């Protein structure tokens, strides 16, 4: 695809991947909620008007209609800001998509804190909590362009409903072109022995940078990618909880019931590791640029490093 050093948004990679898939999948359609611009789908919808269903600003109905279309053999990808798709339309996701086993892929764009100044109405800091609680709904949060491409190559072949959360940032590369995505598998991307950092989505890059910084201070931090939030690689997490004395989760999400909670569940049952959960506190998030807000909550490289050192010294 693109040059190795070119930074792209998740939207751009997804739009291109779906555009390429139109040649092999005659049933692929996109369902938009007045969101084709913010989803980066204008080139797609212009090129494929016959594969575009505009539902207007009506996320609940968009999800239900997509379920009806999936029932008839279509392969809908519903694009809407994560906040509205995963929260406003969650009952439609639960009933019409997941419970009915309709092959609908829900793409929550502009997720987490990425709407910055637009405020907490637009932030989705609870979407992982709520979507991972829905039976038979897969939940993914990819971190870079190679993983997104590989994830979508999997989704295009899968007949299972799924929710994918992406942000707006131009993504740094974590992986390489040959990355292969395996659902339900966590991935160790850096080995270590003193502490294990577990992250997902856009904060994974900062976790990786923090691990490199910690190495300079003699702390060998492993880094694990939890892009597959559900199905969860419980086996690997249980093994990590037994191998390490310290686990730290980092996520662009409320600390309640995100990946930290998912990991905690396994640690409490199978491990001895102490666990530190880094994320957004249980309060309305402070407003600012994503970098400012990540810094404020200690989710950037420096903040993660500081939390890890403090955690290990206790």
């Amino acid at each position, binding site marked *: 695809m693109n040059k190795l050093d070119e930074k792209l948004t998740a939207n751009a990679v997804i739009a291109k991947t779906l555009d390429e898939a139109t040649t092999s999948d005659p049933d692929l359609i996109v369902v938009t909620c007045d969101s084709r611009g913010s989803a980066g789908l204008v080139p797609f919808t212009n090129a494929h008007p016959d594969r575009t269903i505009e539902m207007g600003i009506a996320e609940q109905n968009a999800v*239900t209609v997509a379920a009806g279309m999936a029932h008839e053999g*279509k392969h809908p990808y519903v694009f809407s800001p994560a906040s509205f798709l995963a929260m406003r339309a969650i009952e439609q996701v639960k009933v019409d998509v997941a419970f009915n086993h309709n092959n609908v892929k829900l793409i929550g764009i502009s997720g987490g804190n990425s709407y910055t100044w637009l405020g907490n109405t637009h932030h989705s800091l609870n979407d992982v909590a709520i979507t991972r609680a829905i039976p038979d709904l897969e939940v993914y949060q990819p971190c870079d362009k190679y993983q997104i491409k590989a994830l979508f190559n999997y989704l295009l072949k899968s007949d299972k409903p799924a929710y994918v959360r992406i942000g707006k940032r131009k993504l740094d590369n974590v992986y390489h072109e040959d990355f292969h995505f395996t659902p339900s598998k966590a991935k160790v991307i850096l080995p270590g022995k003193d502490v294990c950092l577990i992250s997902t989505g856009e904060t994974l890059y900062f976790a990786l940078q923090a691990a490199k910084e910690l190495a300079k201070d003699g702390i060998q931090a492993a880094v694990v990618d939890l892009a597959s939030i559900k199905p969860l690689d419980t086996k690997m997490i249980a093994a990590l909880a037994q191998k390490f004395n310290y686990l730290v989760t980092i996520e662009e999400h409320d600390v309640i019931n995100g990946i930290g909670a998912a990991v905690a569940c396994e640690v409490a049952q199978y491990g001895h590791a102490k666990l530190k959960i880094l994320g957004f506190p249980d309060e309305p998030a402070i407003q600012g640029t994503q970098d400012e807000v990540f810094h404020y909550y200690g989710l950037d490289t420096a903040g993660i490093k500081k939390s890890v050192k403090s955690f290990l010294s206790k």
Partner: protein
Amino acid sequence: MNILELKKKAVALRKRTWQLIYNHQNGHTGSDLSCADILVALYYAVMNQNAENIGQKDVDTYIQSKGHAVEIWYEILADKGYIDRVDLEKRYSTFNSPYIGHPTTEVKGMEFHTGSLGHGLGLGVGVALAAKMKQSRKHIYVLMGDGEQAEGSIWEAAMAAGNYNLDNLTAIIDHNDLQISGTTDSVMRSNPLSTKYRAFNWEVLEVNGNNMGDVVNVLTKPNDTNKPRLIIANTVKGKGISAAENRADWHHKIPTATEYQAGLQELDAQMEALNNE
């Protein structure tokens, strides 16, 4: 089936539904009886769908948005051979049974899980849009309740159906003017429904939803309007059992032994009258 045969079928199925609910002490009695004639018309006179062809490309789709009126639907599916009637009558609302108080796709003939209100019309819009894309000749029928019209998602779906000129979609409102807490006008006034749907670019027809001849006529009337069609079927909740008629508390009331016997006698008398026609 001619209209007289359809009327007899409706009485027979009301009786089986009454028995099913009484025998298992569970069900939405008033809602089942209210829409019985509409379902009989759809399954025995209108829809191109049977136990063998359901799910095929050009075969009609039925979506029951008011999922709670499920017992009459079970009895129709059993009568039409989609499911085994002995199995239904043995296992309805028992442990680990597919025959529960709302439709599930575990039951042949039920293409969607419903029960949470306000979903069926949007599902119908999705099926209708996909059918147009696939150049399928299927027609989509969605049955809704009138209390259900308070759900906002219905109006999102109604707007989309009107926007996309879904003339392959027929929605029917079982308009019995009652819901669990009382009259729809006292709980949340949705009337007048006809002007609301017309404003959403629907063709709207009204009919006596408990008059079999009228119901069949309206459901088989060709739609040349380039619009989705709404049929407001004015019905009586609990229709056919005088103790239950027009009573909100019969939404999911179970008959007592005395009421049950009286109901059976009433239904038998109705059948006898039809036999003498």
